[in-house]
């Protein structure tokens, strides 16, 4: 097996809210290997988003070690984390989080403006099937379209890692399939290492590997025999 792109060992994350301590991660080991597509499953509150945020350099663990290739993220300062996100990570969020005052193209340009050797914004949009909607504002796009713009925005920098937190959470099944197939296509065509969070168990079938979280711990880590195409999955 190749070296992992991202490697997390013994991760814990404790939120202290006054008297109460919430253990979002209770000692997680997690790896992401080059070009694979991993689905992270788990009930709401099981720590999926917390893990993804730590892996993506949005947040730091309370204890544990995270490394991206030869960079130790768990010891990086805010500036290094920003550089890591800027150069290597693409994010897709549940609520798309497009900038409402920018068109589809301009939302993608937010990334191409600061990335090294990015795709053209139009090409990224074409890749997600929105070549004809480049000048639309978010308010003029449906939820699925907005999410595809968000994917285009995430992949335009040609990231090494693509992290998606419930990308279909706000979408109906058919639209969700479309979004997931875009993710699968990006993973296949560009070879981008991809992690997708979901609480819909059937979606796990599209992955190379499925990791299940429960109460801040990895409950299982299984490899699928074969990946199913998202179009063939329903939930």
């Amino acid at each position, binding site marked *: 097996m190749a070296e992992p792109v991202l490697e997390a060992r013994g991760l814990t994350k404790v939120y202290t809210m006054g008297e109460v301590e919430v253990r979002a991660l209770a000692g997680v080991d997690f790896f992401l290997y080059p070009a694979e597509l991993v689905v992270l499953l788990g009930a709401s509150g099981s720590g999926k988003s917390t893990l993804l*945020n730590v892996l*993506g350099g*949005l*947040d730091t663990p309370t204890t544990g070690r995270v490394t991206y290739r030869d960079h130790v993220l768990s010891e990086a300062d*805010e*500036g290094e984390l*920003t*550089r890591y*996100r*800027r*150069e290597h*990570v693409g*994010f897709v*969020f549940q*609520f798309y*989080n*497009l*900038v*409402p*005052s*920018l068109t589809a193209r*301009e*939302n993608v*340009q*937010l*990334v191409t*403006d*600061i*990335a090294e050797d990015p795709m053209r914004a139009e090409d990224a949009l074409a890749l997600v099937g929105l070549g004809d909607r480049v000048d639309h504002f978010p308010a003029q796009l449906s939820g699925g379209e907005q999410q595809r713009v968000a994917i285009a*925005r995430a992949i335009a*920098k040609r990231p090494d890692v693509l992290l998606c937190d419930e990308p279909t959470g706000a979408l109906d099944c058919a639209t969700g399939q479309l979004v997931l197939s875009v993710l699968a296509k990006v993973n296949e065509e560009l070879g981008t290492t991809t992690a997708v969070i979901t609480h819909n168990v059937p979606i796990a079938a599209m992955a190379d590997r499925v990791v299940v979280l429960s109460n801040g711990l990895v409950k299982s880590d299984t490899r699928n025999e074969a990946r199913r195409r998202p179009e063939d999955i329903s939930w």
Partner: protein
Amino acid sequence: MVISALTRKLFRDIVQMRGQFLTIALVVACGVGAYISTVGTFRAIDRAKDRFYEEHRFADVWAPLERAPRSIRGRIEAVDGVHTVETRIVTHATLPMPGLPEPASATVVSVPASGEPALGTLFVREGRLPDPTRPREVVVSEPFAKAHGLRAGRSRIKAVIEGELLELDVVGLALSPEHVFTLSAAIMMPDDRRYGVLWMSEPALAAASRMEGAFNDVALRLQPGASPEAVVHELDRMLVPWGGRGAYARKDQPSHRAVEGELAQLQGFSTAIPVIFLGVAAFLLNVVLSRVVELQRRTIAVLRALGYRGAEVALHFLELVVIVVLVGAAIGVPIGWWVGDQWTRMYQPYFRFPAFAFELDARTIGTAVAASLAASLVGALRVVRAVSRLAPAEAMSPPAPPVFGSTLAERVGVLRLMSASARMVARETLRRPARLLLSSFGIALAMAVVIVGSFQFDAIDGLMDMQFGMMMREDLSITLRRPVTANELSAMRTLPGVRRAEGSRTVGVRFRAGSHTRTGALTGQMPDADLRRVVEWPGRFVPLDREGIAVSRKLAEVLELSVGDTVDVEALEGAHPRKPLRIVRLVDDLGGLAAYAPLETVAAFMDETPVVSSIYLSVDPKDELALDARLRAMRNVAGVGKRADLIDAFRTQTAESMALFTRIITAFAAVIAIGIVYNNARVALSTRAHELASLRVLGFTRGEVSAILLGELALQVALAIPVGFPLGKFFAVAMMSTVDPEQYRFPLVVSTATYAFSASVVVVAAVVSALIVRRRVDHLDLIGVLKTRE
């Protein structure tokens, strides 16, 4: 150039919040404009003054006297600290001018036969200096010449000097650094038609005024570092045998003093007004930017997640601030230029400098813009720092609902008495007490600014009533060259048209007490005086007592004396008697440092029989013109003043100079009020759009929903008004404190009308802002608002 996506967002954000953007930019514009106009006007006057004084050798010390032989000049030169001495003849003239029903008066000054005087050289605007071999040549002060259409080499004027009528050829028009500000003593304002300065060659003037071989005025320039006080003291001592009338230094030279007084006021304005505006701008930027950042929490988080650095995102919001300031400056610079130009023009008839124009230099603009940027950045700093510190993951979740229920009012239970919707207003308002209080304070500032711009009118009516209704009740006032006795005064009563004649005796004196010395006047009043009496603010006749003197309260203050104390008084004329006089009363008079006593008391002090130096006449209107002409023809008459002229001049001058100022200030204040009310309303609307739309969905009417929103604004304005009144009064006091109280003591009155006006300016501004915001409430997109997620 490729425009980055973030820059596009910036411009779209600006377009989207254009109302708020513009109102804040306008507040900045007012600050920049106020700064540029006041500083530019200050510089215009200050530079013109420095240049004129320097190039035309303005003296440091002057000493008027009765008559001294030219041979004593050497002794004056020998006084320690004296550098240059210029002796000259200064006298009065009456000028029967074709355009005036009664003659104008003039000060006549000699010019050395050799040509240029050593000090106070003339700036010849047209023509040339008088030729010493031609005694009929005269140079006329330019403003007077302009007022009468006199031209060098073409005009001839008549002048009565020492009772003799001379026909003089106008050979030049000139300005002098000693007469930059020529004021008519009675109205404390310039009157170019009725007062001028003439310059004649010394031999000619000496002949006309019988001063051959003598002089009656001396101007001195001091050596560097010499003390003017010491020289004044020495001159006073030395000139007694020649009737010294009291030497004085530059700071007491009337023209210079007026210029300096105005400069001090401008300097006060040039800091105070911009500080108010920039403070408000900083506050508004803070309020609006806080809201923008609140609204864009998600966007900020996304940008951070996409790899934008905290500093880059912070800069994005700072750019917004910078653009507001630059737009404000772009509006403010031309406004400031225009206002400054108007303001400088307003000064032009008062201050007669050779060249005197509003100047706008890059440095002033640079300072204004830099100060605006600094103030705005201070306002934005906290918000922007918070932006750069917003942890990207934390910001991904929507802001937690704010905690309610801990305010004092809540605990006291006042809110339980209110309707649910009123409770909404109250809770939201009380949750941000700092914002409410600062907003109210800002509105109060706007009111205070209006009050400062308007209150000067308030004192004027009272001032006019007192000055012209109680104190100066004569029709004509006559200044005599030499005092006359009661007998001669009686002769006046026999002149045709005279109904009543009375007189007073005024002596220039020096008051001394401890280490304090002041120059002023001692006035003796006739016991049955009716036309001229001593009056004090706010309109009380002051009874006089033979046992001593009544003195200006200010004089007692500077001498550190009070009723019952004695003051050492030295007359600056006649035999210069010097005696202690007892203070029996303090007088709240409005200008100068004066002492008042019955005529006999003054006569006893002067060791003379009772005489008068001024005569006041009440006359029959139909005889007034003839009488005026007849009086001026008398040898002993130095000048005749008409009360009606004074009233006229006073009215027009004050009205003209103050109206423009008031209008500009009021407009500026309205900008502040609108800026605050409108922006608060918009922020409140944006904060509560969701709630308000929900209420509409629940069946509340537009009016009810607007009332909830606008209730908070009404509260802001209501809180502001009681603060604005005293704040305005405070500003007015501060503004008046730049006026030299030993010279003028304008009563500080702020009328109910002015208070009401200031309140109505902010109320109107608030209503206009409310109407604009209300239109938005009416068009609340119910579905859209409920759908949007923060």
